[in-house]
């Protein structure tokens, strides 16, 4: 019991770190699902591209030896901007090519198209950048030893950065959704696409912007993941995408605060499973948690029940 309590704070920190990444991925899923009722399987691969872009920028600015040409925080900021911009544009491209022609097609068609897009992206990366792992040299930007001790736990600078960045991004998104015209339009389109169009909302543009936002967040998640967990490879998007969707579902699909909550919950559950039960079964445990959750509360933590008019 004592061991449990002693480990708890560290697992909490780990959980929140992981949860931040999942939350950002989950947001993209939730937003797109809310607006198009589409499971964007390629979303995880956008996240992967974000990690790669961040890696590229980092490598460009990291000298082989000697001091950094720019302050570390600036480099990190550049990584974020590049990844978010790049992924946002990629998201727009995916929507335009793989989903827009299928706007009025039966549900199965865009799902299969999404699957195909996911495969395409993964293998395009494998073809051009090989299947080798790439590693973020975070230690060159942020010294490993930097951090603060919170009792028995240690909050490293990197983890603090991840959690903080995620919180900042989520606050910005919440502001966008709650307080701006765009956010209102987005919520309107999610509730009733036709009615929104009749109210003068440019539905296509809103959809494009939603994809941009969601993908940009995934890109940021990719950079964050790279910073704290280092490894980057072409199939990392698949698992992460699955977890992101799980988080979105747990929080209530289509619900933005739900996605954030779901992400955090999932991160904590996974960290606890790894820390307290066994790392080998972590995927299975997360998965069973998802099934159990869906059985008990299919609409998620914050989701609303959908009423179908007969």
């Amino acid at each position, binding site marked *: 019991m004592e061991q449990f309590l002693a480990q708890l704070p560290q697992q909490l920190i780990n959980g929140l770190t992981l949860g931040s990444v999942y939350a950002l991925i989950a947001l993209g899923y939730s937003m797109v699902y809310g607006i198009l009722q589409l499971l964007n399987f390629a979303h995880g691969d956008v996240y992967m591209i974000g990690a790669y872009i961040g890696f590229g920028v980092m490598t460009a600015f990291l000298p082989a030896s000697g001091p950094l040409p720019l302050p570390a925080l600036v480099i990190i900021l550049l990584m974020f901007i590049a990844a978010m911009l790049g992924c946002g544009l990629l998201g727009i491209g995916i929507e335009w090519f793989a989903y827009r022609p299928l706007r009025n097609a039966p*549900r199965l068609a865009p799902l299969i198209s999404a*699957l195909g*897009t996911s*495969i395409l992206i993964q293998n395009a990366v494998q073809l051009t950048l090989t299947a080798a792992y790439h590693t973020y040299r975070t230690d060159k930007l942020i010294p490993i030893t930097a951090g603060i001790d919170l009792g028995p736990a240690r909050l490293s600078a990197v983890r603090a950065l991840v959690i903080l960045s995620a919180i900042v991004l989520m606050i910005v998104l919440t502001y966008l959704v709650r307080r701006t015209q765009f956010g209102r339009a987005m919520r309107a389109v999610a509730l009733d696409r036709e009615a929104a169009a009749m109210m003068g909302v440019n539905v296509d543009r809103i959809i494009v912007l939603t994809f941009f936002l969601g993908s940009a967040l995934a890109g940021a998640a990719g950079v964050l993941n790279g910073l704290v967990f280092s490894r980057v490879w072409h199939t990392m998007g698949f698992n992460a995408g699955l977890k992101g969707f799980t988080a979105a579902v747990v929080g209530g699909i289509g619900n933005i605060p739900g996605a954030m909550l779901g992400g955090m919950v999932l991160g904590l559950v996974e960290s606890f499973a790894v820390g307290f039960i066994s790392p080998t079964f972590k995927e299975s445990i997360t998965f069973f948690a998802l099934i159990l959750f869906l059985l008990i509360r299919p609409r998620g933590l914050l989701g609303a029940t959908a009423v179908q008019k007969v």
Partner: protein
Amino acid sequence: MASDKFGRDEWVAQIDARRAAPTGVTGQLLARWNALPLGWRWLGVLAAFAAIPFLTSNDYLIRVAGTVCLFATLSLGLNVVVGYAGLLDLGFVAFYGLGAYAYALLSSGKFDLHWPSWVTLLFIGVLGLAFGVLLGLPSLRLLGDYLAIVTLGFGLVFVQLAITMDRVEVPWHAGPIDVTGGSNGLINLDPLRLFGLDFGEPLTLFGYALSSVALYFYALLAALAVVLLVIYHLNQSRIGRAWRAMREDSLAAEAMGMPTKRLKLLAFACGSAIAGVSGGIFAAWQHSVFPLNFSTDLLITLYAMMVLGGLGSLPGVVIGAGILAVIPELLRSPELARVAFYSAVVLGVALFLRPRRNGLIVLAGVILLGLILRLATQTLWPDLLSPPTITVAAESVSTAFERTAQTFGIIVQKWIILPMEPTPPGNVAFLVLLPALLAWARLQPSRLKLGLLAPLLYLLAFVWETRLTAEPAVTRLLLIGTLLVVLMIFRPHGLLGTKRVELV
């Protein structure tokens, strides 16, 4: 009443069918073929397939034929769940794996259980049914998209468990038990022994020697035939109608007395049983099972087969399986792959461009463009070019066909710009090609679109020669991904499916 006259003209009513039917030579052949009774058509195809081991003693070819049968059977099973019941099951391959591992554990030296094959296969069938119901139960309460993710997770977890269950702690045994062999899998499985026949040993029939590979081929072909028959019968019954009704409108179906929950479970169970038994035969055939046999890769391939052939169409799914099972084999030999690739491009251009002379113009344009570019590079930057990397093998080691393919390869390599270092420019060209192709596909048909096709095809050939031939595995997946997206946008009903009308 006067209104009786309207809508009673049968010829007018069938105008859509007439428009859709192909004309000319293909149309007439098709009409003749379709005039034959259904049973005869299938028997003919299956008999032709059965003749393969008698036409060639090349084990490799027979093995490919066997793979086609296996994948066709799997795709048919998946078709029951997705095409008939409309449930997006992304964990299907896990049932395949379950059957394979069950065979590996029950008919091998692993736990020294050498169950007779027919018992094992029967058990696997029942196991498949049971697990299908088990997975189906939670799915009843889930919306289609949630179901997709849950089943996907199930598939992933299965592979995970297979990899990690080589160290299972149990209370009644000191030390961990190795159940699944981990990532090394399980080997030395018993061969199939049915009807007094040992499939692991060659058999002499009517003076003709059938290798073990051929025997397993027949087992797989028989399995395919049985599954086809069962599914066809199910389709033409109240269950088939209920499944289709459920897929159309689940609520209305329920209101018309069809127990949708039970029917969904039945679809799941049938699909899983088919997958499980296929897995068992596969395990015996391969003498081994490895976790990575059952990855998402295979799942995507099965979906591509189904979608290419046409969801819900039995012959379509079989044809789709045939095409997509043969392609990786073609890609194995670069020379053969090259012939197939260029043939496909030429055929595609010739078939899809109307009028036909446009196709000829485009092809001529590409060849001309290539020659010009090659000449330019040769005069300006000769050092960048590499001589052909292919040589024509001696007569003693290759067939005439192989030598022709090699010669063709040399000609192509002299026509295209083949850089000394093919990888970097190839990668760049690929990254340009992808968005360019996609953007081009969305253009409205026009002179511009036609004109742009030639440089695009050249770029495609360039990427092919520099990168794609060197990476057959990746190329196969790229092809499948593109196929899935393009099919959904331009021809969602695949090759032989029927166009569906949906109310969104």
